[in-house]
């Protein structure tokens, strides 16, 4: 009986404290960002619209390795590999279906060449679903994106015209397997 009454008083009191705390919020400013008029701060690494970047020489970075397409959890990347005369691989077409993309950034993480990158631009509304399918010309930009100065072909060991084995940056001379010398 006594315990019940004490409990009741305590419970009533805690409820009153709740009321008081909520009432206190009368004086705190709202946290809402009024979006179209007022842009929220988006950090540079915010994940939204995807771009394909170029290396410092202005060539496409993408080497059509398909890693992004494999990594994508919703399978929204499609591309076809082709090869230029100097031995570089590049995508014949590169298509991202943004109506499926969940902006997870897996493709960016998988990409060995920093070609595919996510940008903070999220305003991609369309009335027509088919307009959400972006082709390579929509995705490609004229810069390096978040990783300036990086060029895959300059650091990789693959031979292309104008660059033989061992000529890439930081690459050791190829080992002559027929030689007995150490």
């Amino acid at each position, binding site marked *: 009986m006594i315990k019940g009454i004490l409990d009741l008083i305590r419970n009533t009191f805690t409820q009153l404290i709740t*009321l008081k705390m909520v*009432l206190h*919020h*009368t004086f705190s400013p*709202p*946290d809402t960002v009024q979006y179209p008029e007022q842009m929220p701060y988006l950090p540079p690494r915010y994940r939204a619209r995807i771009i394909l970047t170029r290396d410092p020489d202005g060539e496409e970075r993408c080497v059509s390795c398909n890693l992004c397409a494999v990594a994508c959890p919703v399978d929204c990347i499609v591309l076809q590999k082709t090869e230029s005369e100097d031995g570089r691989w590049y995508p014949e077409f590169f298509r991202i279906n943004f109506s499926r993309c969940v902006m997870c950034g897996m493709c960016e993480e998988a990409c060995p060449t920093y070609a595919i990158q996510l940008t903070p631009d999220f305003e991609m509304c369309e009335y027509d679903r088919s307009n959400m399918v972006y082709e390579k010309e929509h995705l490609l930009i004229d810069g390096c994106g978040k990783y300036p100065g990086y060029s895959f072909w300059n650091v990789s060991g693959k031979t292309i015209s104008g660059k033989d084995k061992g000529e890439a940056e930081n690459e050791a001379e190829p080992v002559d397997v027929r030689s007995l010398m150490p």
Partner: protein
Amino acid sequence: MEDLLIYVVIFGTLIGAMTYAAILVWFERRMLAWWQDRLGPNRVGPFGIGLALADILKLLAKEDWVPPFADKKVFVIAPCFVMIAMLMGFAVVPYGPETYIADLNIGLLFFMGMTSLAVYAVLLGGLSSNNKFSLIGGLRSAAQMVSYEVFMGLSLMGVVMLSGSFSLVDIVESQQDGWFVISQFFGFVVFVVAGIAESHRLPFDLPEAEQELVGGFHTEYSGMKFGIFMVGEYLGVILISAMIATIFFGGWIGPGFLPPIFWLAAKTFCFVMFFILLRAAMPRPRYDQLMSLGWKVMLPITLVNLVVTGGVVLWMNT
């Protein structure tokens, strides 16, 4: 002339209460948002007040659908109950010394009868929808009703003893030299709790309980029928607030420089705000918790209050 005045009051009440209820739909969202550090609906018109109108237009434009499995007649008639009952309740509220629709000598009983009738809307709506969620909503409403109706009535008896009348006009008059909230504090607390339960507002909105029961008793309702339930609920809030103000806070009594109706409106508004604050702050109890609160706490408090008040009144008279 007398006739004209009464018509003015009646239409004023009808239009005023309905407009107030419609605006409250918007106002509540704004206030909830305020207390939750949001902005709430602020786009339609100044401060978003156009939302009240937009809401009504939207509801009118919706298909008025009666589910084929429902008990059609009851289903259609249920929303009307809540509206009619709540509006009838306003008939006994005195707006000023001479301004009222009816000075019934059983005004208080009439008010309680009308609000109890409003519960039938919930019951019938829940039952006739032929839907499990609605049925559970209706059931809860019934369980809730048996637990709070008792002490709701009893909590007001202290006031009746002190003022010596069931007529709300007399009750207000007898508060000229002191509000009843002071002498009848426990009666006031109990009545507020019962009033929240009566108008199915959070934290006692068990029949509706969106989070558990989809929409509770009005799960199957759409279009304007749903709208009527909604407006009925807000009418209930206003009516209960007006009653709290009238019975415990001196109704229209206030400093003379403003018309009496203003004081009533201001006091009512405070309690409407309190209802909204409750919604912003409180979690919903289980309905067995509500019932045990009703029978084990509220009823004893009321009875003790009643006995003490009776004793004091006797002692004063001898």
